[in-house]
């Protein structure tokens, strides 16, 4: 019975993936992609990867979907033109060959994996209690692979700088995105007043639960950013000016605190990002708390796009 469900979900995933790729209409393709992300998170649940499932649903399906929808909105005007074009037969053949080649290489790589797959899990599990974190995912991300997590946070900040660099000169330092107008007595404004208090509590709960249970800063930041977006879209608050000092401080505090803890480790424990004996849990909490505002702000501001409203500063 469970095998049957798995097979059905896998077939559905493959069909959705194909449908998303061949869809001519950009909006439909994004809709397919979002559903694909949600189904994929179901697959992760079945594989007992709850943390990955949460991240996939929040970032893969939700946030990326919303970003792509924004892109679709911006491309609306050009879509008719691109639809009319069709590539030459040679280009198509090369593209098809390339796609098939990548698929074949990936399939070969997966099938060639030794069985059982090489794993460091048996070595990691006995030393995990030393980190003071009960959720193995959080433990690995912030103790054994802390450098990856640090680079991830830095990449997000760089991505935001990349988006901001598209700003025209006259708009630099101003507010990004559109000022949303919505009926102040409408359902959206109602939802934007009712939902954020609940969403903030759930976001912080997910963040705090991340130490011992599935959850963590990424999932929490996505929910918090979504609440902020909701308030903006209901016209209850404007997007922030990007030259606001507090905002910029919030954006860089995560990576800065992370690097500071790393340098501290260099002095007190002998290696960059090493935690001194008995200090692992408090330092991990410091990093997580510092990363939360960074991730929330970066995710929301990525959605807002480059500053566009010029005029009086």
């Amino acid at each position, binding site marked *: 019975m469970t095998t049957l469900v798995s097979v059905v979900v896998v077939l559905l995933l493959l069909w959705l993936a194909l449908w998303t790729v061949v869809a001519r209409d950009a909006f439909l393709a994004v809709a397919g992609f979002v559903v694909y992300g949600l189904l994929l998170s179901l697959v992760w649940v079945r594989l007992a990867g709850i943390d990955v499932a949460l991240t996939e649903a929040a970032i893969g399906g939700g946030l990326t979907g919303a970003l792509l929808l924004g892109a679709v909105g911006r491309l609306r005007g050009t879509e008719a033109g691109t639809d009319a074009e069709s590539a030459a037969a040679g280009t198509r053949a090369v593209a098809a060959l390339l796609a098939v080649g990548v698929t074949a290489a990936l399939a070969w790589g997966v099938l060639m994996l030794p069985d059982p797959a090489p794993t460091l899990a048996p070595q990691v599990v006995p030393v995990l209690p030393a980190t003071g974190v009960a959720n193995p995912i959080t433990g690995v991300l912030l103790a054994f692979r802390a450098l990856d997590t640090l680079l991830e946070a830095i990449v997000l900040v760089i991505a935001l700088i990349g988006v901001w660099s598209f700003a025209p000169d006259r708009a630099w330092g101003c507010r990004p995105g559109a000022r949303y107008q919505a009926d102040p007595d409408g*359902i*959206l404004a*109602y*939802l934007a007043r*009712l*939902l954020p208090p*609940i969403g903030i509590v759930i976001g912080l709960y997910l963040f705090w639960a991340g130490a011992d249970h599935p959850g963590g800063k990424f999932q929490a930041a996505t929910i918090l950013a979504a609440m902020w977006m909701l308030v903006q879209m209901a016209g209850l608050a404007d997007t922030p000016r990007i030259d606001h000092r507090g905002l910029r401080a919030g954006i860089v505090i995560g990576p800065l605190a992370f690097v500071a803890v790393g340098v501290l480790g260099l002095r007190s424990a002998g290696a960059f990002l090493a935690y001194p004996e008995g200090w692992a849990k408090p330092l991990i909490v410091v990093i997580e708390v510092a990363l939360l505002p960074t991730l929330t702000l970066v995710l929301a501001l990525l959605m807002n796009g480059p500053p566009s409203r010029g005029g009086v500063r």
Partner: protein
Amino acid sequence: MRLLLDAFSMAAIVAGAFFYLAGTVGLLRFPDAYTRLHALTKADNLGLVLLVIGLLPQVDSVLMGLKLLLVWLLVMLSSAAVAQLIARSVRRGEGPR
């Protein structure tokens, strides 16, 4: 007692699944956006409440049960609000008649 609760859960969940199925059939078969929304929101809300009622006897702790109820309330809230928003944007797209 256990058996009775299990039977109750089973019945509620099957009924919930039936309403989801009905909602999906409505989504596929109904002629326009409004009736499709009607089918989806009504049937899915009923399906969800039946699923939650069916799962409640199976939880280990009161906290878990409260979380299930919270999920139910939040989904109700969002589906009702989103249905309104979609219907409104459809009406705006059609223009004044």
